[in-house]
């Protein structure tokens, strides 16, 4: 599939949690190879939109997935590791994804090399640092070769050096042509990694622009205020 081909589309979706409308009539189309950053304040619906795109939350409206985009994976803000070794966590993820047994070992080895965790393969996954666990979570998802990888605030609770390592890994996935959808509060990160920015406010999409235009053009009042709160002058220009 070439860049520019629609992989995933949601039309008029609404998600409610009890009396609260988390998403209201949201439509979005994701194309192959895009890196889309979902930004917005807390409670704006970023995570819910990711979950709706991934198809793991009950919603009204339609969700269309191209045959080439059936393989999807999601990495959560706080990675969940089974109380097993790094190696077994990778093996289990590959087994769950239906990867044939013959290729699991090579895939897991490749994933560990990519994350720089080869030396730690026999260590308990839960004994790794937060940054190492997030890198493991990323390559665990990557190893299953998803067409679309969803990332829910992948660097939210990491220190600057771990953030940098995770961002480098994400940039390498994007360079390989993987389609990435990520929610983030880090506008600098959205600017560095994303090809497109979707701004959400109270469950609706307020802006959907290529990254350079989103950060470079004059955007309406609320968005400008949001950006000023999250970006330094240097990052904005």
């Amino acid at each position, binding site marked *: 599939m070439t860049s520019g081909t629609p992989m995933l589309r949601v039309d008029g979706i609404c998600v409610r949690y009890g009396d609260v409308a988390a998403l209201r009539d949201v439509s979005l189309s994701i194309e192959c190879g895009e890196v889309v950053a979902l930004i917005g304040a807390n409670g704006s619906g970023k995570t819910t939109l990711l979950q709706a795109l*991934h198809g*793991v939350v009950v919603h009204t409206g339609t969700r269309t997935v191209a045959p080439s985009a059936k393989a*999807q*994976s*999601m990495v*959560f803000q706080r*990675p*969940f590791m*089974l*109380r*097993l070794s790094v190696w077994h966590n990778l093996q*289990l*993820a590959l087994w*769950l*994804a*239906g990867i044939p047994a013959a290729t699991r070992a090579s895939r897991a080895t490749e994933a560990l090399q990519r994350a720089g965790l080869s030396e730690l393969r026999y*260590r*308990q996954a*839960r*004994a790794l640092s937060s940054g190492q666990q997030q890198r493991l979570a990323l390559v*665990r*998802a990557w190893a*299953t070769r998803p067409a679309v990888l*969803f990332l829910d605030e992948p660097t939210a609770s990491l220190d600057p050096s771990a953030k940098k390592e995770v961002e480098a890994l994400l940039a390498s996935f994007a360079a390989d042509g993987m389609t990435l959808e990520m929610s983030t509060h880090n506008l600098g990160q959205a600017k560095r990694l994303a090809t497109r920015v979707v701004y959400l406010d109270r469950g609706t999409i307020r802006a959907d622009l290529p990254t350079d235009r989103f950060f470079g053009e004059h955007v309406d009042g609320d968005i400008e205020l949001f950006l000023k709160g999250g970006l330094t002058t240097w990052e904005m220009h």
Partner: protein
Amino acid sequence: MSAFVESFRTAAALVLDGYPVLWRTVRLSLTVSLTVCLIAAGFGLAVGVWLAGARFPGRRALLLILNTLLALPSVVVGLVVYLLLSRSGPLGSMGILFTPSAMVIAQAILVLAVIAALSRQLIADSLRDGGDQLRSMGGRPLVCAALMLLHERWAVATILLPAFGRAVSEVGAVMIVGGNIDGVTRVITTTIALETSKGDLPLALVLGIVLLVVVGLINGAIGVAHRAQGKAMDFAR
């Protein structure tokens, strides 16, 4: 006070002399209780996984019944199993009333409820933590629930301990369906009850101590394993 001390002295002599009735009773108790635990663990953990992972109409009612079974009076179970296995009962043709097999059936019913209810709660809590991640990797609900048993294996061990404790210390049901026949179905608890009523306190006392030692040893083994795992995690950090 002197009678109490004298009982202890005689109890010690029984142990040192290798009193055959004592060890025969202990052996039968342990054999029955371990068999019960194996059978109940197999079925109980499967029920726990199913109730934690599956969603179906009537599940809540089933959970309510299961939680109620936690407080199931053992004499009621004994009575029901007695009626089922008695000559005129539906399973009377099996001819196993007043045998260790009947005791295993009665105790397994009691212990199964404990294992199923506690393991279901344990798995449900773990799924709240990591269920979304496992489902995102392609895991089906029951597979995810079963994986949580592996994830929480030490906690599962601490469920099996009280289950064994309930089996080995149970008296009502085994008295009814076993008949407390000397050399055939007389176990530690029924011997304690009988010998106490006869006024033979030393044998009752030594059996009580053996019971405590057995449960204490298993508890200690699980504690050691827990600490070993904790040390492994600390070392890995």
